[in-house]
């Protein structure tokens, strides 16, 4: 990939704390105008990676470049960061709070006030501007926190678990906002352990497991290249009907459905024929793309 076009380049970065290696030889590139998913289970090294990107901690070795320049304090103003552990001054009024964080990002005066009003209106918080932060509900506080990360119109927005604690309505508002920012050619890094969310929002993903990158690339390509087929079936009968080690490697019950991973090279038709021959009533037989979760599990197994 052409490095010069990337918003962010992380190149062979390693970070250890004492004997524990939190991030091991990680390389990735994030392209402008895309949502980049940084995914992996808790404790995989996502937050440490992000902290190095936003220049809170320095890597032990390796290189991080933002917009073609090495990370410096001045470059911090180009990044917006919504940390996983949310933090706001409880006793400050919402408006003043946003004003303070805007000033920390070098947005001052009328410009700051205008942007604060714009965002408060957009996220339906205008009437809370003069209220103390502690009087807001958790979801509203989270939206305020989100505003602090976008108030300076950053080129790169890093969101660490942005949907945790939000109700479904606000999850949709947040998703829309993220996609809107993407359409304005902003780059967004979305860090999450919830694969379903990443699946729906991300253009590219990088999966981390135990401090190491498991795989990365365009989500669509990853799915396509993942050779195994999966089938979702629903029929009136028991799971035993599907037992055929030559065709099926894994069966997972999802509600009334069975999600069946086919053996490499196996033809879904073989399975369908088997079911038809058995005489059960089939109400659903669908070829599905493997979920990110399945890919992750398979890749981790492969790596070990």
């Amino acid at each position: 990939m052409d490095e010069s076009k990337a918003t962010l380049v992380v190149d062979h970065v390693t970070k250890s704390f004492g004997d524990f290696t939190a991030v091991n030889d990680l390389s990735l590139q994030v392209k402008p105008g895309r949502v980049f998913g940084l995914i992996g289970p808790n404790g995989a090294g996502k937050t440490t990676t992000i902290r190095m990107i936003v220049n809170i901690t320095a890597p032990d070795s390796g290189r991080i470049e933002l917009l073609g320049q090495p990370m410096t304090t001045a470059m911090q103003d180009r990044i917006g960061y919504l940390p996983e552990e949310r933090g706001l001054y409880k006793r400050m009024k919402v408006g003043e709070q946003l004003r303070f964080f805007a000033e920390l990002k070098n947005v001052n005066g009328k410009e700051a006030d205008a942007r604060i009003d714009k965002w408060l209106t957009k996220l339906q918080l205008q009437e809370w501007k003069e209220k103390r932060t502690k009087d807001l509900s958790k979801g509203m506080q989270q939206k305020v926190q989100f505003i602090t990360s976008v108030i300076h119109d950053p080129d790169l927005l890093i969101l660490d678990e942005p949907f945790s604690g939000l109700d479904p309505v606000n999850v949709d508002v947040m998703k829309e906002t993220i996609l809107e920012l993407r359409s304005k050619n902003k780059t967004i890094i979305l860090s999450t352990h919830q694969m379903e969310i990443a699946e729906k929002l991300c253009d590219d993903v990088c999966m981390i497991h135990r401090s190491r990158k498991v795989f990365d690339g365009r989500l669509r390509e990853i799915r396509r290249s993942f050779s195994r087929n999966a089938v979702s079936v629903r029929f009136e009968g028991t799971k035993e009907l599907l037992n055929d080690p030559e065709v099926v490697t894994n069966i997972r019950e999802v509600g009334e459905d069975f999600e069946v991973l086919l053996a490499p090279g196996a033809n879904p038709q073989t399975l369908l024929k088997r079911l038809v021959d058995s005489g059960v009533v089939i109400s659903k037989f669908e070829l599905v793309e493997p979920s990110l979760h399945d890919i992750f599990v398979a890749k981790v197994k492969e790596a070990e």
Partner: protein
Amino acid sequence: MKKLFAVVKREYVQRVRTKFFVIATILGPVLMAAFTVVPALMFGIRAGGPTRLAVIDETGRMYARVAREINSQQAEEEESPEQQPQQPPAGLNSDPKQRAEQAGKAMQSSIAVEQAMIGNRSVDDIKKELDARVQRKELDGYIVLPASLLQKGAPEFHARNTADVFTKGQVQNAIYRAVRSERLVDSKVDEQLIRRASEPVRLRTFAAGDRRESKGESSFFLVFGIGLLIYMSVLLYGQFVLGAVIEEKETRIAEILFSSMRSFPLMMGKLIGVSLVALTQLSIWALTFIGISIWAAGTSISVPKISPIILMYFVIYFLMGYFIYATVYAVVGSMVTTTQEGGQLALPVVLMLVAGFYLSFSIIRAPSSSLAFWASMFPFFAPITMLVRIVTETPPLWQILLSLGIGVVTATGLIWLASRIYRVGMLMYGKKATIPEVMRWVRQS
């Protein structure tokens, strides 16, 4: 710089606007006064009216003299030092009438004496009767003057409350003086002569080179008050910094702050912001004090005079103490997870401040001793000890400058060290840092 200013502004505005600040500004002087005046008053006052004492006089002739001595002694104690300079020293208490009046007044307020009639009863019977009266709370105690009092006989003091050392001392003193006078009269010394010989001497005190009489006590209280004020404000505002740092750590605001600015301007902004809050409060107090002084100048109320130079030194040494201690508090705050833990870890720091405060007591007595010198050079004590020296007996300028220099170097070094620990500590959640860990952070960063 803009970011540092933003931090300063936030700290200042958010704190000055709180109810706590307003209340503390109003209550501060009241509390200070309470701390200095109340203990003094508590020693002086005795609740529940005069102490009632009966006297069993077996000598048959000592009662009148003892009673008079008890009363006259109280009269002397009643005279406040403020009143004395206004009276011509030569004629002090020479008017017997005035003296008698004061004695009467004192008797109403403090000790009331009565004579227990002996009659034909034995001393033991009278004692039993008086014991019963003490039981019934009609009396607080009684004195037994044995027949051999003027020779070697020891008088007895029976009281409900033997812990009241003040009354005991007064009684003992009065009996001693009465016995001494009686013995002198027995040796044919003129009664008038004895009274004149017992006339108290009053020492007039001047600061060398100053023609105005100094009020030793009020300047002692001034020094004490200034020491206490430095001690309390450094402690209070140091705790503010501790609380602020822990809040940012607990609420994880630190993460956002560090993603926007370096740790040094962040910590400096915090320290400066809180110091401005402190200066605002101290200025309000100073202006109030000046206002009261101007108002009091037209009245007879005496207010200790504080020169502008002392005020200036006060601000300088307050800032020095504040920046040293608040920096330590900031480090402590970044190392712990809760306010309680912070309090424990900060205890040695507080003890240093307390030590400095107590040292000032011996420094008031010998402001030029070598102890005073070294104590005022040690940066953790200097804010209190040097200021005490300046107020009592201003040391040579080079000593003041040296102590300030040491203080500035110490504060700068501490802030430098602190900002290295701060960054790492603030991002460590969930566990308290150990000292070896902290040492490693300093080396690594």
